[in-house]
Every structure is written in C-alpha cells, then in structure tokens.
C-alpha cells in the first residue's frame, strides 16, 4: 500500500511540474503586456463603454472608469496579460473604431 501510494504521487506530480516549467520558458516573451486605449475627440463615451463591456466583459462601472481615465489622461490601461490576447483585443477594439496599442507592462 505504501509503495502504491508513492507511485501514484510520482505519476501525478512530476509531469505537472515539468509541464509548468516548459510553459513558463515558452511564454517568456508573453509576460504581461498592457492594452492601452487612447482618447479621441469623436468617439462617443457611451460607445467606448459599450465596446469595453463587450470586448472584455467588464461591468458598466469598470468600463466607465476606464473610459473616463482615457478621456482625462489621454490613455488608459484597459487590460494586462499575455501578448497574443492583447493583440486580439487591440484588433477587436480597432474594429469598433477605438484606437489602442499594446506595450510591455512595467
């Protein structure tokens, strides 16, 4: 019984550990990127809030806060995460007329 238990632990824990390690190395370039939303003088605030809610699934309050940050400060970090998703979000925002870019997180 004791030996069986040890074997069971080995087969479950070691592969998981190896997999996590490989993923970490492969995604080194994907360490946090930020999606920046830029202010513009023609897009309606309501449009920005709706797009942020739809694209990111944010609450109305969070989307409004981010919109107001971009409006007042010229830009706002609206999402942080891995690069490929950040690019996809940028493309989605752009297809709604919003201007956004990505950059490595600080």
């Amino acid at each position: 019984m004791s030996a069986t238990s040890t074997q069971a632990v080995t087969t479950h824990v070691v592969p998981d550990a190896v997999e996590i390690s490989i993923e970490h190395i492969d995604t080194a370039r994907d360490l946090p990127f930020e999606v920046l939303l830029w202010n513009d003088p023609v897009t309606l605030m309501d449009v920005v809030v709706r797009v942020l809610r739809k694209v990111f699934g944010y609450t109305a309050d969070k989307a409004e806060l981010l919109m107001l940050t971009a409006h007042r400060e010229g830009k706002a970090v609206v999402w942080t995460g891995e690069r490929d998703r950040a690019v996809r979000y940028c493309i989605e925002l752009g297809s709604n007329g919003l201007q956004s870019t990505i950059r490595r997180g600080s």
Partner: protein
Amino acid sequence: MIHRRRPVFRREAAGVIEVNLPPAVSDVLVRAAEQLQATVEVPGSPGFARLFARVDESTADEDPAITLSRQMLLDSVASTVIGSAGKRLITDDEADAWLKVLGMTLARHAAELHVTTDADRASLSKEDGAMIDLIQALQVSLMIVLDTEAPANR
C-alpha cells in the same frame, strides 16, 4: 396633428431588428462601408494610418499578420453592411457590423479631417460636423436597440 414618427430601429423579436431608415441614410451607410474598403487600398492616407496604426509598440515593425487580420475583419463587416443596408429586418449580428462600420468610419473621417482635439472637432465645417452628428446618432440608436430585449407578446 402629426404622425407619430416610427423609430429608425426597433426590436422586432429576439435577434431581429426592424429598420426604418430613410433611403438617403441607408446610402450613407453603404458609402461608408465602401469607403472603408477603399481605404485599405490607400496605405498613405490619414484614414489608413488611423485604422491600421501600429498595435505593438514593443517591436520595430508591425507583424504583417496583424495588419492582415485587421483588413480581413474590416472587409468582413463592410461587406455585411453593404449586403444588409437595404433590408427592412436585420439580425443582431448585422446590426453589430453596422456599429463597427460606423465606429471605423468616424475614426477614418476624423483622421481625414485632421481632427485630433476637441477644438478641431468644434471648428469643423457645418457639413462635416453634420456627418459626424449623423454617424453618432445612428450609433446611439443602434446601441439602444441592440440592448433592448424582445417584446414578450409578439
């Protein structure tokens, strides 16, 4: 006495929207979609620079795949608009494409007119300002109807 005006967009059923746009406004929508598609062909234009501004600030050159994805997405929603602009009933997906085309048209239009500040916006000619007002009004109407639930008993 006056007739009660029909709303330009009305929720007809789940996923279906009734459209009562004047033909001239439908034409504006189609032209907007066509102009967006044409913008792709003019890389040096302000509209192109605005719609396809670099996404990734961390690399020296933009990944061509990103630009291609954006162009394909633009072409897809513009084609949807051109194919549905004359319909009396549109789906929510088509309405969403209309919203996207309106949003990108606003961005392209502002870039072509060199509008980068609120002051620029305020100093537009009456005609250019009216076009932006029309696009924004359509956006608001579409957002309202898209966020409206279908009537229970219809």
